[in-house]
């Protein structure tokens, strides 16, 4: 680094040397932070698109195609964006850079859990999300010391994105890869004492991963409820009233969950804001179900009503 020293500042002065070292550390941290922020923004944009894609499902028959496309997109986000975040976090305390990627992570959890709910009709678990962001060591790795956004080599290394096939089948990146220290991540003594750093059942050896703090996971789930509400309103518009009742049940379960979480201590302000939104979403769906019922009551039988609605739509 050709750092110009002011005149009269002795480059051999140990204090000056020490401060040069401080400068290097601060710059590296800042550069890494910026790189992660940028990846996070990309993840946010792409996750939002997955969510929109999933809203295009209007009936059972739509599912295979849409879910297939969503799966591919999610895989791309994982392999081409999260992978680089993970690489940046090798040998770092992930909490140090959490603020840089928390936005992207929450949006990604929202998208992934929405996908999962539609596929499997259940809430995704934290383990599953964390597992998704756990990468095999033999995958392509970018240079470890990528630093200067102005350094073309470094930038190139990051942007030589492994295509889907590469990531899984090849180990094309060896020429630019650098040994990742063999030592495993330090681990908390037990899961209960430390919380959520490590993968359950995984010793996390020699692996690349992006830590998913449980709080960010749950904040992502809170956003999910907004999408579920939108879907419920959608389904009413489409005459699928039963689905609306099902989604209400799901939201009630989520509401129970957040009711418990909502009063916990040391909670981020974000959380209470999101819980507020959840309450509104739930009430919207409750009101929708109410109006289905209050109208349905004018007609003798509920099934008859459904038939009628179906007829008026499909005939």
């Amino acid at each position: 680094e050709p750092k110009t020293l002011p005149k009269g500042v002795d480059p051999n002065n140990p204090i000056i040397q020490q401060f040069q070292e401080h400068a290097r550390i601060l710059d590296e941290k800042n550069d890494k932070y910026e790189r992660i922020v940028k990846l996070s923004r990309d993840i946010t944009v792409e996750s939002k698109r997955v969510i929109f894609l999933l809203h295009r499902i209007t009936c059972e028959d739509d599912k295979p195609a849409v879910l297939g496309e969503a799966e591919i997109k999610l895989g791309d986000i994982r392999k081409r964006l999260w992978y680089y975040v993970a690489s940046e976090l090798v040998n770092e305390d992930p909490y140090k850079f959490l603020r840089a990627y928390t936005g992207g992570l929450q949006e990604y959890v929202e998208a992934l859990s929405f996908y999962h709910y539609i596929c499997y009709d259940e809430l995704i678990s934290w383990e599953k999300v964390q597992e998704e962001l756990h990468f095999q060591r033999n995958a392509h790795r970018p240079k470890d010391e990528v630093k200067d956004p102005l350094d073309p080599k470094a930038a190139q290394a990051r942007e030589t994105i492994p295509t889907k096939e590469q990531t899984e089948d090849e180990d094309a990146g060896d020429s630019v890869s650098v040994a990742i220290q063999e030592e495993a991540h330090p681990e908390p003594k037990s899961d209960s004492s430390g919380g959520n750093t490590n993968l359950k059942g995984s010793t996390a050896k020699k692996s690349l991963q992006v830590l998913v703090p449980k709080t960010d996971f749950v904040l992502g789930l809170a956003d999910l409820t907004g999408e579920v509400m939108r879907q419920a309103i959608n389904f009413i518009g489409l005459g699928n009233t039963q689905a609306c009742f099902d989604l209400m049940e799901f939201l009630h379960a989520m509401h129970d969950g957040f009711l418990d979480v909502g009063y916990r201590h040391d909670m981020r302000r974000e959380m209470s804001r999101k819980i507020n939104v959840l309450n509104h979403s739930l009430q919207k769906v409750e009101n929708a179900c109410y109006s289905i019922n209050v109208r349905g009551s004018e007609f003798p039988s509920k099934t008859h009503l459904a038939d009628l609605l179906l007829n008026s739509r499909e005939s």
Partner: protein
Amino acid sequence: MANVSEVFRDYAESIEAEHEVREKVRDKLRVIETLARESSAMLQHVHQPSGFAKIADITAQAERHLVDQIRPALAELSSSVPASQFYRYYAMFNYTLMRLCHLCSLIHFLKEGQLLTRAATAQDWLQIGQSRADGFYLEVDDYLGGLIQTSNELARFAVNCVTNQDFERPVQICEFLSTLLAGFRLLNLKNDNLRKKFDSLKYDMKKVEEVVYDLSIRGLTKSPPTGALED
């Protein structure tokens, strides 16, 4: 929706666990803060006529207090923070660490007239790590923040030295701050907390320069101070 409640039960447990860590950290911190306040109170005496004569005693006392009391308390704090989650709780003890660095570098300067390096602060004085690999460690930011607190204290001290008829020490302080300033100038600081503190360092420098000036024009310095950055 059985798995919904499982997910939340799991989360509730993890919050509870985190809460416990926080409580523990908070307790340990409270002890350290009280001790650090005591240390500061001791060191305050150097500003006063009564204390001025016994600077060596005061620093020795403060150092002992640091070694005997603060260091073990810090070790307890350190062991209550899961090694891999240093940054998870960082915002809780961050400011306190900075203050401890300040105490170390102030005592060291009063004794030796020298800058205490980060390595020495972490290893010899606080006995915590120097890098992420060491678990609980001394971040560069906190070390630097501590140095600036020391510079604030020394600027005030330079003034009181003169009141107490010590005309040598201000020159020594002047050189020290000058070196520090040169060092800080090498850093790329974001528009953050540290940068604002750095500005206060410049004012300290100015203040001490004025003191040295006042002394020189009155011929009260033994010899003109030697260039601060040329040693």
